């Protein structure tokens, strides 16, 4: 018998047939291998760029963005998106959003500098967050950026700087509120219900040193309830009308922040995210209806700003990885170790990421625990998932990894991998190189007395 006439090997498996209550969703969750991403073979990508590897689709980013913009622009006359840098601040990614017309939304001096270096005009940068140093604020004021005040200490510091620079900062306040969704995010900004937000607005307008241009809120993360945004929009509009009534001052924009859920599945969720996450249209309908029905009556409708990040990019990126080994756990379950773990897939802590083999498989499955390569017990990608029979060196595709992983990743015990972008012509570009030990060591310094040992 020649080699070519031999059959394809699949490891032996024996599975107990259970006579439990049937699961209405069926037992199999994976039907097809994902052998190609945007026209590129996963095997070729790994051969050329290594494994693990982040793969981002420019086509998908633009498609998602246009879908979101359309959802809002067909319902409201003045809409502006601001790309949430913390979600993914790789320059190439940010610039796709900037090309699509997005401003930048940043939450630190580092992100602010990144936006400036990307070429974003200062007056198109929204500066959020509780950590803005005096240097950051001076820069932002000079560049006429939109500064969203988080707390009174920042408000007082801004007044001091404005007095010294003799420039009027363009400011908004961040407002937190009860929208019927719990837990309420009350650690950022000024509270609506207890009057803090109104007090802050009075302080700004009485001081006469700052231009109050907007109102901002960001009610939570991975929000599954569009109606919460309707409540938030109504409350901001009410504040805006109070300012108009008392000071005859028009608020120019209402910034509804982000937090729209993506299609990922939260851990513990009974139904998959693709079935329960609201669409952009659902969020747009809730927000724009609430704004238009509100009692705010300015001469011009305020600009509606959106800082959505996750829902725009999550499904535009994949993490491809390789099976390192298979093991049997003490309870008989199969475990598979991948070369990508929570060090580069931080979101595995709260999502049940969909994971698909990149090569053909048969109908036989096993309950499998999928682990990362770290020497840490918490390095778990999926605690229990029905998977086809995987072999060492098989390639796997982890889905919906575009948000937060490439900003929250850790350089723990190993180096971070390359990130490639597949453009609209299916051409592959390395947009972040893999780290080397020299990159890491270049930041270290060993004192002379510690240089030598026997």
């Amino acid at each position, binding site marked *: *018998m020649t*080699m070519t006439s*031999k*059959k*394809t*090997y*699949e*490891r*032996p*498996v*024996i*599975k*107990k*047939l259970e006579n439990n209550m049937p699961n209405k969703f069926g037992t199999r969750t994976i039907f097809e291998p994902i052998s190609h991403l945007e026209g590129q073979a996963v095997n070729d990508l790994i051969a050329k760029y290594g494994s693990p590897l982040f793969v981002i689709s420019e086509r998908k980013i633009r498609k998602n963005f246009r879908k979101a913009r359309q959802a809002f622009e067909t319902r409201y006359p003045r809409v502006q998106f601001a790309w949430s840098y913390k979600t993914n601040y790789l320059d190439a990614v940010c610039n796709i959003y900037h090309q699509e017309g997005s401003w930048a939304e940043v939450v630190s001096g580092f992100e602010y500098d990144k936006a400036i270096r990307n070429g974003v005009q200062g007056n198109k940068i929204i500066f959020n967050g509780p950590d803005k140093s005096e240097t950051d604020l001076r820069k932002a004021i000079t560049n006429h950026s939109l500064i969203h005040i988080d707390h009174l200490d920042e408000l007082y510091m801004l007044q001091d700087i404005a007095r010294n620079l003799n420039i009027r900062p363009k400011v908004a306040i961040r407002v937190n509120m009860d929208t019927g969704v719990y837990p309420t995010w009350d650690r950022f900004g000024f509270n609506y219900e207890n009057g803090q937000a109104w007090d802050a607005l009075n302080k700004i307008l009485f001081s006469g040193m700052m231009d109050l241009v907007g109102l901002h809120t960001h009610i939570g993360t991975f929000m599954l309830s569009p109606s919460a945004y309707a409540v938030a929009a109504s409350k901001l509009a009410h504040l805006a009308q109070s300012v108009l009534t008392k000071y005859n001052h028009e608020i120019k924009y209402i910034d509804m922040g982000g937090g729209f859920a993506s299609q990922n599945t939260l851990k513990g969720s009974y139904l998959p995210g693709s079935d329960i996450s609201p669409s952009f249209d659902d969020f747009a309908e809730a927000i724009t209806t609430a704004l238009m029905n509100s009692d705010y009556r300015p001469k011009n409708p305020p600009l509606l700003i959106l800082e959505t990040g996750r829902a725009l990019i999550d499904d535009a990126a994949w993490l491809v990885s390789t099976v390192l080994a*298979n093991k*049997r756990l003490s309870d*008989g379950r199969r475990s598979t170790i991948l070369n990508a773990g929570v060090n580069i897939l931080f979101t595995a802590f709260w999502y049940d990421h969909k994971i698909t083999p990149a090569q053909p498989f*048969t109908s*036989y499955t096993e309950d499998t625990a999928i682990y990362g390569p770290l020497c840490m017990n918490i390095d778990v990608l999926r605690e229990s998932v029905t998977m086809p*029979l995987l*072999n*060492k060196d098989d390639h796997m595709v982890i889905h919906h990894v575009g948000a937060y992983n490439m900003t929250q990743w850790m350089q723990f015990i190993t180096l971070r991998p390359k990130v490639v972008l597949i453009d609209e012509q299916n051409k592959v570009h390395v947009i972040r190189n893999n780290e080397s030990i020299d990159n890491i060591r270049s930041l270290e310094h060993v004192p002379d007395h510690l240089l030598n040992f026997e």
Partner: protein
Amino acid sequence: MKIKSNIAVSDNGFVFNPASGESFMVNPVGLGMLNMMRKGQSQEQIVAAIQEDYRAEAMTIERDLLDFVEMMRQYRLLQYDDE
């Protein structure tokens, strides 16, 4: 590494243990191994026979065979010499 003599195995990989009432499914490679074990073939013979039919390294087959046997032990399908 002996299969209990009362275990029934069908040609399409259905395994039934009349003592417990439990049933199992094995894939084609597993079925091949199971049948050879029933015939009392040794580990080396089974690995060689599988390698004859399938594209796989002997080391891989041996590792998978040991895991397969371990799973059958957990499912109480194996018989020990003193039983």
